[in-house]
């Protein structure tokens, strides 16, 4: 085993308050790093910084499954989806490899598994993922500098309180989205990297949403309100048995609900900053909706059991959602915003809220129909969803 130099030993004797001089990992085979990266030739000779004399081995050369690929950039640059040519575009239904072997590369044998729970294409795939990934990057924005914060002006106290409540709950929605996506992403195999990459943009979007609603709440003489009731939050986080069921809750229920709220908020924004936030978050959420619909469509098309499973999942979801809806905070805060104050909330505000909820329910049910997921008739749904599902929506 190599020893420390005399000079450094002398120093050790004088001052070694916290870190005692121990053999370093580099010199101690018992704690040396696991040899996986370097070839057998390099192992054991790697701890010298000096040039080695022997020549290259080059046994890695010519190891490829397909050579001669030349993907050219198009009008929108060189996009992720453009790379799916030849064997690199072959996306099998199962991906049993539990390493980070890139799809199309020559795998390396004998590697211990990283451990992925989602290993089937049907469990995560969406054809649009690669495009959504590139779109997310092109349409990036920064709350700090892109939102015209200087347009936020003092508002009547009831309206400010209402906006702050809505921002508190939307920020908490974003938190659940972050924790859910981040909690699933590492469980997904490498073979479907487009989805992992898209989800990286989605959790980053959610981080921005978490941030911009918090900023809005803290910028105009208000503050945060009371946390949301959290029944749907719990449902999304608890649905850990399969990503498709999580997507049903995260996208088909929560994202459609959030997007409907944002659409109505954008119509009732009090300044350009709010309008900017609502519209941009809506734009980001539209990508999540596209991914979710696309994935569920794929899952339903390739798994006969899936429509019935999702029907059950969503029927449970209806009951959980109604519990959240019983809480007055979000409903009344939205009504105050729509009605331009408490007074207006009692009539126009609540009418607008009712219209919004009908819009939400019918959008949601429309997607379910498109996906072929059976849903209870409006009259059989728990209140108030029965009312919203049965109402007519203004165009």
């Amino acid at each position, binding site marked *: 085993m190599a020893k420390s130099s005399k000079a*450094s030993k002398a120093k050790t004797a004088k001052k070694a308050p916290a*870190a005692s*001089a121990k053999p370093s*990992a*580099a010199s101690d085979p018992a704690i040396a*790093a*696991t*040899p*996986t*990266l370097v070839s057998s*030739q*390099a192992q054991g*000779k*790697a701890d*010298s*910084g000096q*040039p080695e004399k022997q020549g*290259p081995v*080059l046994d*890695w050369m010519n190891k490829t499954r397909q050579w001669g690929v030349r993907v*050219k950039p198009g009008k929108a640059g*060189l996009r*992720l989806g453009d790379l799916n040519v030849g064997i690199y575009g072959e996306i099998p239904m199962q991906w049993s490899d539990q*390493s*980070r072997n890139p799809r199309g*590369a*020559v*795998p*390396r044998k004998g590697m211990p*598994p*990283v451990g992925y729970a989602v290993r089937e294409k049907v469990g995560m795939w969406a054809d649009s993922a690669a495009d959504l990934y590139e779109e997310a990057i092109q349409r990036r924005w920064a*709350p700090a500098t892109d939102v015209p914060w200087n347009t936020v002006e003092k508002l009547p106290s009831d309206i400010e309180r209402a906006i702050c*409540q809505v921002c508190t709950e939307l*920020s*908490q929605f974003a*938190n659940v989205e*972050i*924790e859910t996506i981040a909690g699933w*992403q*590492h469980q997904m195999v490498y073979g479907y990297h487009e989805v*992992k*990459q898209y989800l*990286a943009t989605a*959790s*980053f979007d*959610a*981080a921005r949403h*978490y*941030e911009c609603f*918090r*900023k809005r709440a803290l910028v*105009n003489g*208000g*503050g945060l*309100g*009371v*946390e949301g009731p959290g029944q749907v939050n719990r449902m999304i986080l608890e649905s850990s048995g399969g990503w498709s069921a999580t997507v049903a809750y995260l996208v088909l229920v929560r994202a459609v609900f959030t997007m409907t709220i944002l659409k109505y908020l954008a119509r009732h924004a009090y300044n350009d900053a709010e309008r900017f936030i609502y519209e941009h978050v809506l734009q980001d959420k539209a990508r999540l909706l596209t991914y979710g619909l696309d994935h569920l469509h794929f899952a339903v098309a390739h798994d006969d059991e899936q429509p019935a499973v999702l029907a059950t999942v969503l029927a449970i979801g209806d009951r959980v959602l109604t519990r959240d809806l019983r809480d*007055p*905070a979000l409903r009344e805060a939205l009504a105050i915003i729509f009605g331009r104050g*408490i007074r207006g909330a009692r009539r126009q505000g609540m009418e607008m809220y009712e219209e919004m909820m009908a819009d939400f329910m019918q959008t949601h049910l429309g997607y379910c129909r498109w996906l072929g997921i059976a849903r209870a008739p409006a009259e059989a749904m728990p209140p108030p969803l029965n009312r919203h599902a049965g109402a007519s929506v203004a165009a």
Partner: protein
Amino acid sequence: MSEAVDTSGEHELDLSWMDQKGPWDTKAEESRYGLTLADIQIGEYGETPDVSDNLTGRPRGSAPRPGSYRIGNYAVRTKNEIWLDNASFLYEEALQRQWSSATDVPWHTIEPLPDDIEQAECQLATFFTEVEFVAGDVPARWVSETTPDFFEARQVLLAQVMDESRHMDVFRKRAMANGGGLMQATGATSGFVGSIDLSRDFTEMSSRLHLSGEGAVLTMFRMGELMAQNEAEKAMYRLCAQDEARHVAFGVMHMRYMSAAAPERREEIHCYLDEAEGQIVSGVGNPAARGGPVGESLAILLGGGKDKFDEGMNMLTAIRRRQFREYKKRIVSAGFGERFENGRSRLMEMFEEAA
């Protein structure tokens, strides 16, 4: 003046929620760089608890509901386990410096290369495509297990996940852009004990990922000019280096905070650094390690061909020296510099031998 108000058809409101709120009269103001995360760390909203009791996922500073469910299940609830002082800055910078591998890399500057160089480039790109997203998967998992009371740190990690996604992607693009393709994976980030994936403590993970792995990669990306054969590759390395510098900064700043806030963990962290240094030297996660597919590819790229392999190897040795130097600087900055004084670290000894 009074007016008759028609109250028929009016909804009854509860409004009791209006009194449940966090600190009020908060008015964050924009600074030079817009309304940043630092600008909203005001009053109680800027206070982070040493230990978080927030198990419902409520936004920090909002009023709690007594009946809320404990759905958080957060493994990281102690501030010093994940905190760093400049998280807001790193996050805002990440937002400002996002780039697109589709449009910000001048792909048209790539022209056919000699076969040995193209193969070396593709082997290197295969390696990066393979390993880059360990730095996406792993921080994502930790984000999902960290209380939102420490959201500033989580935001930086989410930006990192995004960055790594782009890194994985830009190297895959490079492998397929010039008549080559992917080559053989290395298995560098498999599930072996001691790997970044399997760390069971955030700080240990950060020492393996941010300080050892990404630190080594950052030096390499910074030397991209030497490896690059065209403007596209130069851009690729430059843009990746910019991102990687933030990831490494996270690790350094976290260690610094940890060191000050939890001195009882210093010896433990030195043990992590012992291992991290072993990884830098012996090659796990360090593409500049001598030999093997990646080291040999680098020697070919640096030298300018298979026939200039020895020149390339000498340049690689210089890069390794620089890796050691930069690593040492970071560890000193993180507050663990004594290991270079008391003989615990052999890194500089090896550097001096090589010099």
